[in-house]
């Protein structure tokens, strides 16, 4: 379904999203000895295979010092390495955010182009599993507001492998927001180590003509279920997966809206200034004439994620809420 990705002429392997992350890192570390991996308890958080495959000069198990080991990744990136900094849970990005925003994102500009920071900062958004507010954030909108960074949020094993590899090869700092909603699901992934998914290209994951649904990261899961159910009811939904949030593929989204004239945005980040808000503003500014109905936005309300499952689950957009939103525009 990767319409914007190059065609794979190689064999395929069925693998999970998590396995795709590991495989992408191993392939890039084999390809380029400048690539290193740093982070906390790597073995426990899925990177044990990488740890085993490479020596201690390539994989650095760090103490719990997020801001400083992230800063070390920045320094290593500026001096000839290509570090992957694994920050595990997405809320830990806040601890590292000074080095990511004030250093990694700004150093090239502030030095008039003398430096480059080819580093990848990975984290996983782990929500929906009763781990309460300090482990459940979806903080990509905050980093979308920090220029100098690129932000990717892949939603399938194939996209994860292809985009993570592109991120490692990119000369700019790239933030990778993984979504635990996809960890277990398996999919067919191209074996070719040169199979890359380009940064900055959205993907139409479900073609349709009546309503455009743009879903961010974990929200893609419910959006695809909704599109499949609506298809049975004779409603044709086009589901667009931006995959990259910075730089956003506006052309792909606007092209779809031009066709359907109706837009539903689904985003599991908190409502205020989230990715859906940015896309809504962009479409209103640049594609208003195509809209036949007002834009609908389904976001998590501006509330902390509570521990109790009965409180947590209803906060996120579901198949049913997306189906209802789509129907409200027809």
């Amino acid at each position, binding site marked *: 379904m990767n319409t914007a990705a190059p065609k794979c002429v190689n064999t395929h392997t069925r693998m999970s999203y998590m396995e795709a992350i590991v495989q992408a890192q191993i392939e890039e570390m084999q390809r380029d000895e400048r690539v290193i991996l740093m982070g906390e308890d790597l073995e426990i958080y899925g990177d044990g295979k990488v740890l085993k495959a490479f020596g201690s000069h390539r994989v*650095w198990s*760090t103490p719990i010092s997020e801001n400083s*080991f992230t*800063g070390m990744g920045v320094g*290593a990136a*500026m001096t000839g390495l290509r570090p992957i900094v694994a920050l595990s849970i997405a809320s830990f990005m806040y601890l590292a955010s*000074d080095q990511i925003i004030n*250093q990694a994102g700004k150093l090239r500009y502030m030095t008039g182009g*003398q430096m480059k920071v*080819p580093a990848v900062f990975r984290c996983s958004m782990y929500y929906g599993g009763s781990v309460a507010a300090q482990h459940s954030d979806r903080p990509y909108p905050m980093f979308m507001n920090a220029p100098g960074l690129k932000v990717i949020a892949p939603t399938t094993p194939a996209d994860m492998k292809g985009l993570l590899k592109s991120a490692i090869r990119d000369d700019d700092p790239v933030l990778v927001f993984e979504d635990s909603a996809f960890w277990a699901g398996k999919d067919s992934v191209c074996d070719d180590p040169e199979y890359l998914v380009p940064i900055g290209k959205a993907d139409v994951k479900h073609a349709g003509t009546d309503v455009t649904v743009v879903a961010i990261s974990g929200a893609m899961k419910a959006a695809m279920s909704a599109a499949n159910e609506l298809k049975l009811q004779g409603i044709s939904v086009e589901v667009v997966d931006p995959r990259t949030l910075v730089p956003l593929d506006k052309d792909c989204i606007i092209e779809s809206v031009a066709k359907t004239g109706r837009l539903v945005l689904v985003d599991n980040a908190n409502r205020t200034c989230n990715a859906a808000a940015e896309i809504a503003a962009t479409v209103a500014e640049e594609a208003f004439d195509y809209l036949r109905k007002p834009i609908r936005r389904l976001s998590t309300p501006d509330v902390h994620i509570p521990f109790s499952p009965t409180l947590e689950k209803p906060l996120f957009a579901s198949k049913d809420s997306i189906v209802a939103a789509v129907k409200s525009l027809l």
Partner: protein
Amino acid sequence: MVGIAVTLDKQQQLEAYRRMLRIRQFEEAGIKLFKAGKIPGAYHASIGQEAAIVGACMALRSDDYITGTHRSHGHPIGKGAQLDGLMAELMGKVTGICKGRGGSMHLADSSVGILGESAIVGGGIPIAAGAAMSAKVRGSGQVSLTFFGDGASNQGTFHETLNMASIWKLPVIFFCENNQYAVSTSVQESHGQPDIAKRAAGYGMPGEIVDGQDIVAVYKTTCAAVERARRGEGPTLVEAKTYRFDEHSVGLNVGSEPYRSSSEVQMYIQHRDPVVLYRRVLLEDSFSETEIVAVEKEVTDTVAKAITFAEQSPFPQLVEVYQDMYVNPINYPATPREFRP
């Protein structure tokens, strides 16, 4: 610290004096230009701290890395940078070392190994350790030195990075320019005990205190730390006790209650001026007044030339504002249209 016999040869002594004097005269000229409105923003002068900066830099190879602070003018000059691009940067000109994007707090010159001058206090400490880690992975034999102040030693990055550098025996020198005041807060008010170097013991590395007004002492102490790092034995924390002669930034209003006495400031200016002290050492050594005056005249000319270069340089154009945001600017800039180049 024993076993290392390090001395500057005659040429290096003159070079050390030249760099100290370049910092002093660059700053004196810069302050005048700042007061005349030709340099915008804030001006944090390195006057008084020249021996600490140059003594540390003279112990490094040209390909060794450094990171610095908001008080950023001395570090590139100490590491051997040319002055033209630095002065032009202070004036916000397109010929500035950072094309007018960094300014006074960020005079980073990568050609002499500078990886950034961080105006986020303590921000450069992990970056320098990362460069040391990179040197270790690449087997390049380079070391990395991070300049930071007494204030930064209370940041988390200081403690976290010292710990990691010690675990991995990284070739990094943590060089504290302890000028005794973080803006207006004294070390006495902000540190549990006054010797920052003693904190090294907690992280399993040597901590050395050195007179930051004595360039020879700073040089020797830093050389020992650099040698240790190059031997693969790990990091050292060096604390140079120094003093800034001006306010935190030029013209800063410090209020009615002075945080330091004028007699203390005058004592340092009159008796502990590192440039005057080193000039005396050189004369007592083997240098003639004529040789020293020749260096002084050369420095005066170099600074004057830098000012002329900067004043005659154009300002950057608005159409260039998006340049150097990304190496690989996919779909960038996206908005707004009116600023597109």
